[in-house]
């Protein structure tokens, strides 16, 4: 029942930006491959060194686990379902259609960022996966299970961070995390997790007196303390200061390194670029683009190269030296712009053309499109009501 690779609603799919779930297909065909997502480039697998408090922690419990426990088998043992598989999901609230035929597949072991303007249907989609909403139409499978019919079997295997709240206002931070750990069979060591998220100083503080950032980090800790296979994080860094944001990013990276699948929603494009193996841009209740951040940036909008030189250079001659899909114009006298796929090779071609023509290209700059450019291009720049 896997959806076609070009899933419903994936219009404007840029070249090279495959639908989510492409890796899931590969899992099935390579039963002995690694559990790490095949899509993630090696450079994205490790946290950056810049964050001083980051430590790789020793394992909490390393006794051999009973074989009956559900666990993501390496490389997806025969028939292992994707982390999330949504096909043709519709959800309406009264006359308002929140989710409009959304199709999305999330591979095991990947970090998937769901982006979209406010009201795009992100939270409704996530909450349907978490078993909070009943689909009006379409099918939702999480770890191969129905979030509603198989809720009792699914709940222990997923971690949930709601967009806000979810914690007793009068409960102390450490008390709440310890309690959540008690509900699970093999939790992460609570003290380690508290230290890891910088919550040591507020362990005895009641939830309503925590700062917004501390509240967010506690909710994040509660989502991961049960060692789930899959975590849903709904805007995990909303309202965080830069340090706390980086601590959260590091944790998400470590989750992926340890083989946990992560689905997160965010408004921060840089966050998606930093963390996600796959990005799904949702608007109007549909997936309008999906793929790796690199593929989306490469294909969603053209990149450009600008330089200044003397006015009235022979642009036609320059254009002849460039690949056919490129354009080159003199924007204002002495200011030039080349658009197209700006590769290192193309840059070399331009500078050597300049050398041949005795031009020193001044203020040479390559302008790569960011995910934000792609996002705004796809979802529109105007504010929505």
């Amino acid at each position, binding site marked *: 029942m896997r959806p076609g690779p070009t899933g419903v609603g994936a219009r404007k799919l840029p070249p090279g930006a495959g639908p989510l779930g492409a890796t899931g297909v590969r899992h099935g065909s390579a039963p*002995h*491959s*690694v*559990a*790490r997502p095949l899509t993630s480039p090696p450079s994205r697998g490790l946290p950056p060194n810049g964050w001083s408090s980051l430590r790789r*922690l*020793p*394992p*909490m419990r*390393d006794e*051999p*686990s009973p*074989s009956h*426990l*559900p*666990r*993501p*088998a*390496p*490389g997806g043992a025969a028939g292992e379902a994707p982390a999330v598989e949504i096909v043709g999901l519709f959800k309406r609230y009264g006359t308002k259609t929140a989710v409009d035929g959304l199709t999305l597949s999330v591979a095991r072991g990947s970090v998937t960022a769901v982006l979209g303007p406010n009201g795009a249907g992100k939270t409704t989609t996530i909450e349907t996966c*978490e*078993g*909070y909403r009943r689909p009006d139409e379409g099918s939702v499978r999480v770890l191969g299970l129905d979030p509603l019919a198989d809720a*009792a079997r699914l*709940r*222990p*295997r*997923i971690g*949930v961070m*709601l967009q*806000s*709240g*979810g*914690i*007793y*206002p*009068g*409960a102390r931070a450490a*008390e709440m995390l310890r*309690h*959540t750990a*008690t*509900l*699970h*069979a*093999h939790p*992460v060591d609570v003290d*380690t997790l508290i230290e*890891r998220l910088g919550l040591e100083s507020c362990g005895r503080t009641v939830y309503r007196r925590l700062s917004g950032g501390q509240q967010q980090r506690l909710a994040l800790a*509660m989502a*991961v303390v*049960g*060692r*789930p*296979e899959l975590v849903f994080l709904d805007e995990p860094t909303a309202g965080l200061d830069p340090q706390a944001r980086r601590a959260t990013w590091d944790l998400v990276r*470590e989750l992926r*390194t*340890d*083989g*946990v699948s992560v689905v997160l929603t965010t408004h921060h494009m840089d966050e998606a670029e930093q963390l996600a193996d796959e990005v799904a841009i949702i608007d109007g209740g549909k997936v309008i683009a999906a793929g790796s951040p690199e593929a989306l940036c490469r294909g969603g909008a053209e990149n450009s190269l600008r330089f200044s030189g003397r006015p009235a250079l022979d642009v036609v001659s320059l254009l002849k030296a460039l690949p056919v899909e490129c354009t080159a114009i003199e924007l204002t006298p002495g200011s030039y712009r080349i658009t197209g796929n700006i590769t290192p090779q193309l840059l070399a071609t331009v500078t050597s053309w300049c050398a041949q023509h005795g031009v020193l290209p001044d203020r040479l700059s390559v302008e790569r499109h960011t995910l934000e450019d792609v996002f705004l291009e796809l979802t529109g720049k105007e504010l929505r009501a």
Partner: protein
Amino acid sequence: MIADPTDTADTADTADTTGPADTTGPAAASEPAGTFTPRPGAAPLGRMIRAQAALETRLLLRNGEQLLLVIIIPTLLLALFSAVDIVDTGDGDAVDFLAPGVLALAVLSTAFTGQAIATGFERRYGVLKRLGASPLPRWGLLTAKTCAVLVTEVLQVALLTAVALALGWSPHGNPATVALLLLLGTAAFSGLGLLMAGTLRAEATLAAANLVFLLLLFGGGVVVPLDNFPGGVESVLSFLPVSALSDGLRDVLRDGAGVPWANLGVLAAWAVLGLGAAGRFFRWE
């Protein structure tokens, strides 16, 4: 890493033993698993319910407003109305009339007012929603809440009994009958409290639960005998759950009566109605 990763012939095996999730193979046993390497599973049900009940009890006893409601107000009422002749409580010692009524009030304050307000705000703050995604099943959560209510009631009954005895109370009757009345009363009030918490806004629940507490305090035979009211009003009031509970407790504890079937019947009817409606209409978000 036991195999040369550059040895392409062994790629598949190497991948298997380095997979972060694989700690079962003999080769992988020596490789440390990550902190978050998936190992999901629910704790045993008994442990989950005990932990949830303990948490809810701690939160209740730590909450100043709740303590005021469930401990201080009943104790003060008992002491004040026993010591000062404010209301005509009929023949005999005032404390013999008041102690059963205040025990009924204690059950009302914990099972109805306190539980309704706490649960209403838990719903408002998404606590119930978040717990819905935890391994603890919903019936387990409700069981834990009931346990927390019962633990609180045991503390209340112990304290109020001690205060009443100090004031010269001489209870009669069968303790098992008293326990049965208190349990049925708890079921009736819990159903009504959860119905309110699960259907109204948290602020509305707060206001309504306090108002009902106040009205029942004076109109439910707790500190004011029902026969002080006009006949028609009295017969209507006698069907309130708190009236049935305080009247039943008084029959047993003051008058040494047997099993007060009529009162038990009224409480059972409220319990069925309240719990049934709560089960039908309770919204978790």
